[in-house]
């Protein structure tokens, strides 16, 4: 019998638990490396070559190249680590979050000003969401 993970039925959410941290270790450590300016410069100069220095899966590398943050999280990335990638790209946390929701940056920012995404319809997988 495995461990109970009650958070698996929360919609649109990937909980970064110990299993995901194991899967994503090298992906997240690659992200940490971007906190050093020299590494950022090398990454920007040739992203593929820089990624090939890390023991990441091909899927993880492709998700980074595609800047597909939902995919990166499905492959063990955590948003606070992934933040090093979009910070290196000069993109704000809010703009990066919007890319995960299918909304434009402007639509997402307006949703937040209007009070954020309602929890109604967003608590369990299969519920009908009121927004998004």
């Amino acid at each position, binding site marked *: 019998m495995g461990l109970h993970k*009650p*958070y698996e039925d*929360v*919609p*649109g*959410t*990937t*909980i*970064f*638990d*110990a299993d995901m*941290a194991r899967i*994503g*270790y090298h992906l*997240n*450590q690659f*992200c*940490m490396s*971007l*906190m050093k300016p020299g590494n950022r410069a090398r990454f920007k100069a040739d992203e593929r070559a820089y990624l090939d220095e890390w023991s990441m899966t091909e899927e993880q590398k492709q998700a980074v190249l595609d800047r597909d*943050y*939902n995919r990166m*999280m499905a492959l063990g990335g*955590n*948003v*606070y*680590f992934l*933040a*090093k990638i979009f*910070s*290196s790209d000069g993109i*704000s*946390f*809010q703009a990066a*979050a*919007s890319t*995960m*929701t*299918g909304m434009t940056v402007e639509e*997402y920012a307006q*949703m*937040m*000003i209007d*009070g*954020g*995404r*309602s*929890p109604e319809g*967003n*608590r*369990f997988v299969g519920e009908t969401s009121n927004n*998004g």
Partner: protein
Amino acid sequence: MARITAGVTTSHVPAIGAALDNGKSAEPYWAPVFAGYNFSKQWIAEQQPDVIFLVYNDHATAFSLDMVPTFAIGCAGEFAPADEGWGPRPVPVVKGHPELASHIAQSVIQDDFDLTIVNKMDVDHGLTVPLSLMFGQPEAWPCLVIPFAVNVVLYPPPSGRRCYELGKALRRAVESFDADLNVQVWGTGGMSHQLQGPRAGLINKAFDNDFLDRIVNSPEELSHMPHIDYVREAGSEGIELVMWLIMRGALNDRVIERHRFYHVPASNTAVGHLVLENG
């Protein structure tokens, strides 16, 4: 004897720090956020704490996935503002209290809370944004700070119950320190927010306001709230709120609520703030 006189809770949204650092605090988007702290700035100038025990979480800054301590206490003499990828925030170096921090570690570990002792650590926005909100932009922080980092990034974080009990152990530790010190405990992070996935942007005002009521008036009951309720109701990053329970556990069962502030949004997050005094 050292004594805990008051507790403060506040969100620690990085964009708040960036707004202040870049001179945007008077802009219409940000002015209401900073206005919510006007009372608190005056209050803390009057209180003049000697030491702040500041509970926060590191955001993949000082702790990579190489090591993830659940509870880490900063015992160094000073802590530099971290370079989180866009240069360090232009804020003063944080001065610690190594003697009190070591005393707390000694006491709390013997009280069954297994802390990680940290003697070298940079501190990120989780610690410096609350200082900026409460003190503004001084040349030097007006008191000493003991950073206390809680893992809320790699699930599972410690339970709310564990945090609340740790607060009680912290109080026993502080009150057995033989020096006349005015100590405050701050709990930071929250309130409702989710920074990831298609559900990003979640805000739950009803949950947040209920949490504010209960942490003041019925913390014992609140401390039993399971992780899943935080995740489902307050968002995957809303689970930071367990850190507020360390602050609350360190105060009296009954407290005086001096100030409350709630605002949506600051970037992706609901801002919540309390000033509590031991009655």
